[in-house]
């Protein structure tokens, strides 16, 4: 990969993190913070977009920049696990299980749907 593409990874990786922060804040402010809907919205929209990107068959540096840098940075595993663990600590173990299960199942659905749509564009 060229130095230019690596610079792109840094910029888009930073941009993906900012977008995650803003969308999380927006969703949490509207829906509330009792359940981590902000992270759910981030991860499901990111999975849908990654499905779209793979459906339209991007390759090479473009794929690394969009899928790896931007969407990889936008979506997050660590916060998903952190929020689930904290739900359990606060005595909301059932919600933690729901958060894990719904994210996983809906994430798979979202990426499969994205790929299907991308393949038909």
């Amino acid at each position, binding site marked *: 990969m060229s130095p230019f593409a690596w610079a792109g990874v840094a910029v888009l990786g930073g941009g993906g*993190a900012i977008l995650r922060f803003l969308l999380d804040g927006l969703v949490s402010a509207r829906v509330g913070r009792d359940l981590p809907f902000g992270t759910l919205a981030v*991860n499901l929209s990111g999975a849908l977009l990654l499905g779209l990107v793979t459906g339209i068959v991007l390759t090479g540096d473009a794929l690394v920049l969009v899928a790896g840098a931007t969407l990889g940075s936008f979506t997050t595993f660590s916060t998903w696990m952190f929020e689930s663990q904290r739900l359990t600590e606060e005595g909301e173990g059932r919600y933690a299980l729901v958060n894990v299960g719904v994210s996983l199942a809906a994430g798979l659905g979202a990426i499969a749907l994205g790929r299907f749509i991308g393949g038909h564009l």
Partner: protein
Amino acid sequence: MVPRPDRQELAAIALGGAAGALLRVALSRSYTSADASWPWVTFAVNIAGAILLGYFVTRLQERLPLSAYRRPLLGTGFCGALTTFSTMQLELLRMLDAHRYGLATGYAAVSIALGYACVHASSAFVRRVRRLV
């Protein structure tokens, strides 16, 4: 209303996010795994990020509350960007495409169980150290 984010906070998130993304992309280009095999790089960055996020947030929330930009830099930025949900879902989808259902179940279950356990362990570690000091 959504509170207006301040610029320095956004800059800290961008900086941490850039570092996390660079590390993840560099690792994934150095160690490629074949389609529908165990994705070691994604697995490793996700588990490492879960350990670090539990450590950073517990430490910053419960021990060192007077640092406004460390959590956005290290937690939201670095750990958030180092770890990824979307790539993991794509890997799972490709395992399902290849009818490797056992592998997909194992990858999802081990990532989630270990990621969760690591947040718990690193948080407990910070709290234990605090009690000893």
